[in-house]
């Protein structure tokens, strides 16, 4: 099955970092995507306040994903980044706009609306670009030797647009369920309503991507449907169904915390599905994790740090979330 060697360990570490990024920045990008639906200043202040103390930490996982990949799988980093040139640049610029908005919108009265647009637009662009990048990776990348050998528009296909839209919907759902958890009153009611709509849209998106992915490459089809793989892959869609039922129930019962964490579970399952499709390739159909791996001593050197520091980071990150736990109230945020 899966061998237990350094490249595999590192593949799981990078996958973990990227997943933590997706769920953590996912909900705060989602808040940006939902921003236009909450035009009242008071609501926007609350939404902003609910993530202001943690957004920077959330985004750091993106730097770890990128930096970690350069360190552990330099060849993959060197091939993927030029291949995804336009979506990556778009994502970075989107993150610039939304990141500065956290502080800028409190520093001006007259231009606040401009930074609200920057926050919403930047979040939407960043989410869409990430989803498109994911689709572009899945559909395969043209590699020759140790270089990307495709054109600079190769990433743009109906499939990558589909994954882009799917991720935007998913992030919006994370954002909506986050608001359910962190707010009260009218704001929370609207977040419930949005969660319903977005959940249905997300299920449609998961379905569409799931149907489309196995047909991109023979390998994906084989991976999912061939005997005996199906014994191992079948639980994923079954679990998705189970989580969906729980999620619908928690929304119907107007629970505070469950919708957010069940949405996280939905993300985790989709992500596991992604892993099943891709493994052991890091650039699908071209470069495996063993081909891309940096030398053993680089991976070992970092493994020492990671095994001590990641638990520590998770610890103090959890503490920061704990400090700012509970509902955020209008007019008395921690701002």
């Amino acid at each position, binding site marked *: 099955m899966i061998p237990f060697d350094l490249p595999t360990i590192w593949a799981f570490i990078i996958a973990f970092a990227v997943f933590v990024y997706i769920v953590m920045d996912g909900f705060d990008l989602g808040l940006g995507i939902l921003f236009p639906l909450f035009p009242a200043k008071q609501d926007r202040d609350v939404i902003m306040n609910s993530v202001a103390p943690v957004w920077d930490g959330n985004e750091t996982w993106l730097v770890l994903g990128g930096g970690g990949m350069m360190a552990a799988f330099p060849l993959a980093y060197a091939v993927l980044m030029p291949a995804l040139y336009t979506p990556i640049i778009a994502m970075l610029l989107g993150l610039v706009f939304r990141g500065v908005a956290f502080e800028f919108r409190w520093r001006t009265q007259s231009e606040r609306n401009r930074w609200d647009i920057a926050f919403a637009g930047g979040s939407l662009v960043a989410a869409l670009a990430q989803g498109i990048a994911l689709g572009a990776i899945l559909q395969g990348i043209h590699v020759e030797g140790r270089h990307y050998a495709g054109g600079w528009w190769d990433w743009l296909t109906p499939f990558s647009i589909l994954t882009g839209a799917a991720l935007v919907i998913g992030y919006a759902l994370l954002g909506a369920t986050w608001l359910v958890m962190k707010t009260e009153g009218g704001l929370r009611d609207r977040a419930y309503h949005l969660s319903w709509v977005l959940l249905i849209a997300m299920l449609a998106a998961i379905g569409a991507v799931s149907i489309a992915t196995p047909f991109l490459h023979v390998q994906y089809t084989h991976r999912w449907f061939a005997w005996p793989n199906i014994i191992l892959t079948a639980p994923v869609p079954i679990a998705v169904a189970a989580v969906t039922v729980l999620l619908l129930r928690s929304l119907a019962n107007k629970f505070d915390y469950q919708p957010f964490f069940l949405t996280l579970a939905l993300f985790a399952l989709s992500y596991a599905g992604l892993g099943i499709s891709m493994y052991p390739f890091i650039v699908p159909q071209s470069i495996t994790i063993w081909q891309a791996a940096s030398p053993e001593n680089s991976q070992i050197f970092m493994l020492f740090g990671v095994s001590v520091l990641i638990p520590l980071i998770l610890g103090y990150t959890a503490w920061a979330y704990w400090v700012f736990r509970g509902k955020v109230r209008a007019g*008395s*945020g921690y701002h």
Partner: protein
Amino acid sequence: MFEGWDAVVLARAQFAFTMSFHIVFPAFSIGLASYLAVLEALWLWTGREVFINLFNYWLKIFAVAFGMGVVSGIVMSYQFGTNWSAFSDKTGPVIGPLMAYEVLTAFFLEAGFLGVMLFGLERVGHRLHFMATLMVAIGTLISAFWILSANSWMQTPTGHAINAVGQFVAADWFKVIFNPSFPYRLVHMVLAAYLTTALVVGAVGAYHLLRDRHLAGPRVMFSMAMWMATLVAPIQILAGDQHGLNTLEHQPAKVMAMEGHFQSHKDGAPLILFGWPDMTEAKVKYSIEVPKLSSLILKHSWDAPLAGLDTVPRENWPPVPITFWSFRVMVGLGFLIMGLGLFSLLMRWRGKLYETRLLHMFAMAMGPAGFIAVLAGWITTETGRQPFTVYGLLRTVDSASPLAAPAVASSLIAFIIVYFAVFIAGVIYLLRLMAQPPHHGEQGPRTDVPARAAGITPAAGTVAEGGVR
């Protein structure tokens, strides 16, 4: 725009542009984080209200500057891959881990405690809050450690080998991390960050003293900043001199470009103060020189021979005019900063630190000097190591991504537009914050809840409007 530029030149322009925008924010936030930790410590120690007022005042400024540093920094971490993929593939095994350690030991530490530092004073209590401030300050220094180690390895690579597929690999991590130029570069950069912050703090203090010399906050910050300039500027000049000697040993061509030495000198090289280096004619035109002084500075002997660029193959020459002039800008500002420090010391000794308008005007004018000196210094060291990315081993032209020029040109234009729009707005907001004097009952980054501690100096209108839950 940019027609006729090739993809590598465009990628270099993009790196230079995004890096120059980025570097000013960390340079400021490294110093400011330490300053905030000092202010909070002084407040906890003495209980004097002026310190918490100054803390909250500068905390608001820190929040804005730090945010800009974060978003421009994420761009840098991905630009290695997007524009310099060949470099990433070849050097990833060596500098990748250094940058990964930067993320793990520094970025998370800063980001993890930043929220508590900015918004958590009321929630976690004074001691824990001080710890958060300290963690952020330490994080900025750890970050400097790793990124300067990575940069220094590119300048003076040691401890590596090259594997079968042409990648650099570490043979000895200790030698990679503590490569020959690293200690000098680290000291020089951290001191530069401290001075940069001190000059900004001093300029803001001076601005408010010029309007009202009795304000407590501006007096305290001006005095602290001037102590910093007085004490650290001379140390920085010494550190810079040592860094230069180290560069002479390991990257002689860079020093030749800095000095404008196209020709070798057998018995004593002149110090060229000013002039116009002409690379095609290989000489410095219109130069003003002091005979033999360069040999004295670099070799500590009037008559020491000093090699020139005529000993270096032409294809390995750095761009001399940029290196030559940026170096002079940096050194000139360094001496001006020391001058400011000495002037303030004189006035302090005479008991006129808060009354001397000329000093205040000088300090105000010097407000941006640290940023300009930092940029000039980085331009010196980065253009001076051209045409290599890994000095002597990997050429810049062999480091770039296989991208078409229009792709790089488009992204460069996008960065220019976005950065100017966003960061100019940010600088305006920062200046607006600085234009207000710190006042009694100064509050933290948000106005609707007091960030300062209850119970020290309860002032009207700042009683907690509801603890947050």
